[in-house]
């Protein structure tokens, strides 16, 4: 395939932040040595918290279920190491939610670690025979395996995979854009295990009944495009190369860019017959079916100018940030901010005891040089926020309305449509914390409805 001549797809507006991928994009995926203790939160996804299903001080093996799904939009949780559980604790996740955790003290004997884990996670044979698999069983199996979206939002995957006759799915988009600056976990996965992604994509299409599978990758990862193109061979899977632009990997932007369809405000891609799945999620799906592995580990990019040795690591869910950071040589002195996720949509953290969750795509350590040091000035109404907003909102009006607690204006300017991608605040010359104010506005509007 002539990759250079492939057309480029994109959406309207958006921004071009510095990519900063060079810290970790050439670091092959490594396995983090089994930590002494993991603390597994019972709410790692969007939806209802999971319910503990084991007794305290129980012996568990890696992959054992420790908590059941707490509702339809929820997911169970599995032990990520073998060991003994301790008394439940409480921890504040990066997004500010206080959740119960199940700590597991790792035992000496670990059946799944080191090279064994890496081989099971990335290597081996990923060929599947779809005829042997009942498409309706996949959603249930997915729900049992605790698989949620690995791109960051952690939406339970079984909901996406459920066949719905009223809303047939035509297109499956496999999202390998990874438009967040710094993060390279998806990039490395595409390079090192393209076959697992393809297997997962085929399974997801099988489950949803999607006719077309399209893998979407930004043009700053042409090596990943090549790896996937080689793995696809002559199979009926399409690759679309996207312009490197933020937020290309956002569901709404991606559906618009790849298929020219607008996801209705307040709706899901399903409403226009599309399912979007992150490459990491597809890979987990394949691991579930072919390796009988529930979601117990994920790939985390540890990166930024503030980290000694940036790496891409396979990390057991529940591992404290501190353990991961220590393995990467620790933090430099000029650290300014530690972020769970990437710099555009990630959450800043201060407590390094917080655990890696299913949605933690990276740990980004920024230095003083990375953070703009400037005072907020008055809004000069330049309209740069309007010119960058991929959803065609008027961020400065929303921010002003939030400041003035004007609920009517918030409604008039569709505050709930905002996906908080951060383009407006990135570009704002007056340094106004637009996203923060818009979040406040959403809460104000919600409170006023009660």
């Amino acid at each position: 395939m002539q990759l250079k001549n492939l057309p480029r797809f994109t959406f309207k507006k958006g921004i071009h932040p510095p990519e900063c991928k060079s810290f970790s994009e050439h670091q092959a995926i490594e396995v983090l040595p089994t930590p002494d203790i993991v603390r597994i939160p019972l709410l790692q996804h969007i939806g209802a918290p999971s319910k503990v299903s084991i007794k305290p001080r129980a012996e568990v093996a890696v992959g054992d279920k420790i908590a059941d799904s707490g509702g339809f939009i929820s997911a169970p949780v599995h032990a990520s190491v073998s060991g003994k559980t301790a008394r439940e604790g409480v921890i504040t996740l990066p997004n500010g939610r206080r959740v119960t955790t199940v700590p597991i003290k790792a035992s000496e004997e670990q059946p799944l670690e080191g090279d064994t884990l890496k081989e099971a996670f990335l290597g081996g044979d990923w060929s599947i025979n779809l005829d042997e698999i009942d498409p309706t069983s996949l959603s249930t199996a997915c729900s049992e395996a605790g698989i949620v979206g690995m791109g960051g939002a952690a939406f339970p995957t079984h909901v996406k995979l459920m066949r719905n006759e009223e809303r047939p799915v035509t297109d499956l988009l496999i999202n390998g854009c990874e438009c967040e600056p710094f993060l390279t976990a998806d990039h490395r996965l595409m390079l090192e295990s393209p076959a697992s992604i393809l297997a997962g994509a085929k399974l997801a299409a099988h489950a949803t009944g999607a006719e077309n599978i399209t893998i979407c990758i930004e043009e700053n990862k042409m090596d990943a495009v090549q790896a996937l193109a080689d793995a696809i061979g002559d199979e009926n899977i399409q690759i679309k190369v996207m312009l490197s632009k933020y937020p290309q990997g956002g569901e709404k932007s991606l559906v618009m860019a790849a298929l020219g369809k607008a996801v209705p405000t307040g709706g899901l891609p399903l409403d226009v017959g599309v399912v979007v799945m992150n490459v990491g999620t597809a890979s987990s799906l394949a691991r579930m079916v072919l390796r009988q592995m529930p979601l117990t580990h994920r790939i985390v990019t540890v990166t930024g100018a503030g980290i000694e040795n940036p790496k891409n690591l396979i990390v057991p869910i529940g591992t404290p940030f501190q353990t991961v950071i220590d393995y990467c040589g620790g933090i430099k002195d000029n650290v300014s901010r530690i972020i769970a996720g990437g710099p555009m949509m990630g959450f800043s953290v201060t407590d390094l005891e917080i655990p890696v969750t299913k949605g933690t795509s990276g740990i980004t350590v920024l230095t003083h040089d990375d953070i703009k040091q400037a005072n907020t000035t008055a809004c000069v109404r330049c309209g740069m926020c309007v010119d960058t907003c991929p959803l065609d909102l008027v961020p400065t009006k929303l921010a002003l309305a939030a400041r003035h607690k004007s609920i009517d204006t918030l409604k008039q300017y569709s505050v709930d449509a905002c996906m908080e991608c951060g383009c407006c605040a990135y570009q704002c010359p007056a340094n106004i914390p637009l996203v923060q104010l818009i979040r406040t506005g959403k809460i104000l509007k919600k409170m006023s409805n009660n």
Partner: protein
Amino acid sequence: MNVSVASSPHFSNMKQGTRQMMVDVILALIPTIAVSVWIFGWYSILHIGICVLTCSLTELVWKKLAGMPASVSDASGPLTGVILALSLPWSAPIYVSVLGSIFAIAIGKMIFGGLGMNLFNPAMVGRAFVMLSFAGALGASAYVYDGAPADALTQATPLTVARDVATAQEFPGLWPLLIGKTNGSLGETSSLAILLGGIFLCVRRTAAWQIPTGVVLGAVIPAAFFELLGFTAITAFDHLFAGSLLFGAFFIATDPVSSPITPKGKWIFGVGIGILIMILRTFSSYPEGVMFAVLLMNSVVPLLNRWTIPTPVGGSFPEKPNA
């Protein structure tokens, strides 16, 4: 370990800043100022100096009295001074520059609450004040000075010439209008210098390209009609390059604070200014209409913003009934 916490995004465009925007405009004005000095000599430097100084001082004093941090470091006050100076005739008395600057900053900007709050373009507010108050000192005759050392200063301004069919053949050709070898306000003579700086501003996205494009389209199309109908003695093309149309389009109308925020609003704003300029030039008693056109359109900006709220991608958010 000393880390900070903030709401996302944690990345910002380091090259952007309110001050940088203002500095951009001042940079873009350098060719215009250079031509101005070439044509009008020390008058140009004198007026720019006085206006910048008075504008900055007025802002500092006001902020001090109002208990705000006294600083003009955002460069918006000095910029108002530069624009005001460039819109005055070379012969304007010094007290006109001083009073215009004080009025521009005090009434045009600070009384509304300072940067970002004003409804009208401050420089145009100041200019309107002195133009109406000191009409005698600033009328058409103020531009002409028979004994002036430079050629340009002995001629009437191109648009004044064009108003009368009897003198219309004295209208300068395209070349003098481009390089600026004509009479006029300090900053309006050279279309080439203005285009140079204006395009720089649009490329830098400091100025919204929709506004100057709108002004030009909004002026040229009616001008062509007026020419056909015989209302004006010069061509639409002449109208475009004569007077302060381009200066207004690129440097005055594009003031972000007093122009609309939505792309559609910017189009309407620009086209509206263009049409008003041509109506004023053709039917009013003034040879030039940029200042009043900008001020009139400024006054409808809040309405334009409200009328042109963009529909979000995917439609408006469905409000749940009974929610």
